[in-house]
């Protein structure tokens, strides 16, 4: 948890956490902007046959949400267990003035897809644009 909102009769407050003071300060700012304009939060739950398929499903799911719900996401909290995923994702409403789009992504492909979970974890993915 990055921060929690504290209720108070007259004021409103937050308690922000972090691994060190740097992160706690960052999270305090994040919390303040949450109070100013709450981010929209959605939950995503996916089940695939393996982690490679899961990666494609995950990114395609976010693309689908972007196109249909008009949300641009900036915060992602992902928990993977086997080939299933639970995530909480935060974002805000898309507005063309505020979010000039650099690249239109049509879909996530299976081209040269890589998922490495040992040692230095990395994933590699190509998009159709």
């Amino acid at each position: 948890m990055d921060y929690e909102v504290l209720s108070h009769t007259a004021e409103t407050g937050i308690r922000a956490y972090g691994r060190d003071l740097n992160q706690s300060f960052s999270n305090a700012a994040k919390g303040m902007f949450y109070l100013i304009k709450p981010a929209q939060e959605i939950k995503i739950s996916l089940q695939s046959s393996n982690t490679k398929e899961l990666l494609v499903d995950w990114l395609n799911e976010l693309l689908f949400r972007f196109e249909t719900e008009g949300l641009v996401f900036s915060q992602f909290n992902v928990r993977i267990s086997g080939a299933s995923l639970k995530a909480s994702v935060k974002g805000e409403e898309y507005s063309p003035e505020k979010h000039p789009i650099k690249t239109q992504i049509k879909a996530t492909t299976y081209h040269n897809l890589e998922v490495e979970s040992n040692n230095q974890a990395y994933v590699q993915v190509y998009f159709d644009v």
Partner: protein
Amino acid sequence: MKLEGPGVLSPAGFPPRPGYRMTLLTRKIADYTYELPIGAVEGMRAPGIIYADEPLIKKAQDEGVLQQVANVATLPGIVKASFAMPDIHLGYGFAVGGVAAFDAKDGVISPGGVGFDINCGVRLLKTSLEAAAVKEQIPALMHELSRSIPKGVGGKGRLRLSEGELAEAVVGGVPWAVKNGYGEAADIEFCEEEGHFHGANPDKVSSRAYERGANQLGTLGAGNHFVEVQEVTRTFNQEATRTFGLFKGQLVVMIHTGSRGFGHQVASDYLKTMGTVPTKYGFELPDRQLAAAPVTSPEGKAYYAAMACAMNYAWLNRHIITHFTRLSFEYIFRKSASTLGLDLLYDIAHNGAKLEKHEVNGQVRELSVHRKGATRSFGPKMGGLPETYKDIGQPVFIPGDMGRASFVLSGTDESEKQAFSSTAHGAGRLLSRKGAKKIISGVELKARLEAKGITVVAGHIPSLAEEAPEAYKDVQEVVDIAEGAGLSLKVAKLKPLGVLKG
């Protein structure tokens, strides 16, 4: 040891798996024609045929494109060869510019062989205007087109359709739109398949595709899609030019877009579910992106029925954009669209899988013909063309980059003998999008084009650089090879005067 390169799944082992690269050496078999023999990769059931000149075939060798051509040749039921058109470049699964036909009984249908933008295509609208006489009005016209045609990412369409109406629309295609007051009845005849792909079943389309497609009908999108106002600067074949209703100096409008989020979702849905299908039917894929199912299997039939809906969505999309284009012309020139001669020359699909009849070794066979970044190129003998074009062959449009030119060609009977009546679809990329941005910025590019007298309206100027002329092969080379190989014949050259991008 790690083996690299697309499609290489495992070290050789024994026996090697399909797609394992043996030797990708081509040999010239005719002018502009190279063969990639069976055995270039493990499991090929037919050779690869690449239409190219020497520099192009050398480049293909470097790019790993040949591996993709060979991979397609491993799919069950492939007939004759895995073909690559002269604008070939690296794609996902199939190369862009790939053509492959599979037997309708024993062969497969592959969402990867159609691509994500199902029925991405091009149409050309004629006018009776002389470009020279209206040059002053082009900037205002481009501005008006940009106001009336929604574009860019998140650009919402001006049509509001319920899921039920959309389901009707994607079954009915262009005739549905005409019935509902968009466009002209005459437009129907001048659309490939008359803008109505048969076999569409709206129940095979996911609710996600309907959600994505609901407010995108009649929108341009982004990327390489465009509306261009062009001038016919050169004609090559007087009879074809006359038949197509073109003349030197004429103002025309080219529209290039596809099936938007609706088609992208159909492709993603079926690519996902078809992942395990090959194992079920006893074949192995060299590349996951080539996911395929037997044409006659329930999975294959379901994809075909959903793809057909997306084909119709794309035709509708270009048709609705045509409607807005006509309104924009009427507003700027203060004359009716019919007085301005805004008639449809033709509309072609360059991403799709169609059931077509072709002659193979003297026998007429029903085939599932995949064209991914390739255009149908029916000559006079193939039939199924508008009465007006029956002696010339179908019009083919090859859009080039926005700084140079585009071409109108005509289909040939020779292309039927060669490659199931197919030809190229565009200039073909030379540089990646990132590579293009290193060469020029969007602002510089816009200024340079405008200095050449080309009005540019774009939703996002920095992205414009991705489509810089330098990023593409010269389309002239592509059409020269296509003509040299007999796949299509040059009819007219078009130069851009105004460009609208997403």
